[in-house]
């Protein structure tokens, strides 16, 4: 975990998103797919908290060596401010934060399922998997074609790719879960990696669970610190032995979780009556 003052190399649109490249050699060196950084908003504003962003690219070699690329969508004061930063501006960045995706040991066929800007960390993951001689298949979903992140790069990256858009402006009309069964059949993927809106992650994780395919999800939860000290970012996770559950920090123990261990109903609702609330037997604080 490093705190660095990072110069902005570039900040430009890519479809509906912005691509922000920072000079951050130390963070880039450590960064692994699924991890994120916390970017500080400058003093003097009415929003004070850092903003978390997945690491989209961390270049160690080549022309971009020592740089970090983030992809974000302007949705509120923080991201709207970030869209305004210019080359040579300097940002206060902390990272890499959280746990990264686990690379499969045996498995060779991997399926990456992305929703919206959730594709950001999966491109990074895809490259690392290929560098490990894994076969990378992708399903990329978005509302509209501008929200399909860097489709050209994605196609270059993946051995096979299916794109879905809700308005049908790119690829197939629909959502990722419409095509997931067929893609799993075709690719015989032995592991699934997903990042996108939480409801999508839930659907993917629950389907994979039924198919008994291991599934890792990179989640989002509101974060005040990103450092593990505020306990605002928790996700209810079931104990390894299936007995009991605990609210686990997405910023430290996550954002990557085993999709089968996340207690989706409790996290995203509908909340159940207390009686059924602990289907997993005796309460037992789970720790890592």
């Amino acid at each position, binding site marked *: 975990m490093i705190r660095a003052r990072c110069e902005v190399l570039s900040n430009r649109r890519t479809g509906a998103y912005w691509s922000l490249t920072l000079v951050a050699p130390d963070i880039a060196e450590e960064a692994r797919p699924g991890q994120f950084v916390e970017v500080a908003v400058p003093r003097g504003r009415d929003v*004070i908290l850092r903003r978390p962003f997945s690491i989209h690219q961390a270049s160690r070699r080549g022309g971009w060596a020592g740089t970090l690329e983030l992809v974000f969508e302007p949705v509120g004061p923080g991201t709207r401010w970030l869209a305004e930063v210019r080359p040579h501006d300097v940002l206060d960045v902390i990272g890499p934060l959280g746990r990264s995706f686990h690379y499969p040991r045996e498995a060779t066929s991997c399926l990456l399922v992305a929703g919206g800007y959730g594709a950001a960390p999966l491109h990074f993951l895809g490259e690392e998997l290929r560098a490990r001689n894994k076969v990378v298949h992708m399903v990329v979903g978005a509302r509209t074609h501008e929200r399909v992140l860097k489709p050209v790069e994605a196609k270059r990256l993946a051995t096979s790719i299916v794109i879905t858009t809700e308005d049908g402006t790119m690829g197939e009309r629909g959502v990722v879960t419409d095509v997931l069964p067929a893609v799993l059949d075709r690719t015989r993927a032995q592991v699934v990696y997903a990042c996108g809106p939480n409801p999508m992650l839930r659907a993917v994780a629950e389907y994979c669970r039924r198919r008994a395919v291991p599934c890792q999800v990179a989640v989002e939860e509101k974060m*005040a610190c990103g450092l593990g000290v*505020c306990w605002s970012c928790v996700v209810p996770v079931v104990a390894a032995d299936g007995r009991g559950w605990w609210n686990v920090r997405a910023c430290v123990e996550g954002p990557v979780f085993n999709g089968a261990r996340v207690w989706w109903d409790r996290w995203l609702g509908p909340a159940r009556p207390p009686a059924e609330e602990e289907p997993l037997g005796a*309460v037992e604080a789970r*720790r890592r």
Partner: protein
Amino acid sequence: MSAKVSLAVDLNGVRFPTPVLAASGTFNAGREMAQLVDLREVGGIVTKSITLHPTRGLPVPRMAETPCGMLNAIGLQNPGVEEFLAKEAPFIASLGVPVVASVAGRSVEEFAQVTLRLREAPVVAIEANISCPNVERRNQVFACHPDMAAEVIGAMVRLSRVPVFAKLTADVTDLVAVAEACVRAGAHGLSLINTVLGMAVDVETFRPKLGGVTGGLSGPAIRPIAVRCVYQVARALPGVPIMGVGGIVTADDAAEFLLAGAWAVQVGTANFFDPHATVAVARGLERYLRRKGLGSPAELRGRLELPERVPELASRPG
């Protein structure tokens, strides 16, 4: 003007290397922050509040940002006192920074039990987070009623090996009365203030922005309220060590609290966006004291210059 400045403070026997501590619930017990911050430069760490049993806390969302502040509704999530003793206590002992154990409970009995267990812990003091509801008194908040506050503080003082600080909330009609009750019950000092009860609503979904519906407001937005509380209590109870908490981001903010009568300060929310805030505030305070020709934080304490006639304090002077 080039006085030799020492930042060390002595709160009637409880000593800290600098007057700038990390506030409860914003630094855990230091383990995570140690990866970024040299903890030996931190004046002290107040732990996340510790309860008797493991506590899972409230459903998400637990945080909502508000103008110059934030709301939190964590629900005191913590692994419980046994886990604290097993996992954190040894780590704390190795830190070389004074640690204050924050204690919370739902009944006098729970506060007492945790206090008892903490006799083993390597802490320099206990901070009683009595801004919690008392399940035995229709969920009335301890810190909102002098009698309830006195009862729980008294019980803790009897069982504690180390001095007990009472952490109070500003959401009361007569803060001084609560403070006096705590001191009479044996509180060594006071921490002012806890978060202010607030709420925010998502106007798109019509839902509260917090799973807990209401939550605690913190950050620069509440600093004027916290400074006022310290001023009120310091004037009423001279000689009682006060830790000022609320919205501190810079050394000037900390100086405001010391001038108002605080003996030390705690930095909370600022740790989230500036993990080095406690260190930066302490260093800035040193420069400030030197510039003012003062040798220590104690020399600044209560130096507020009041007008000849202080207008009635109680009114909202609109």
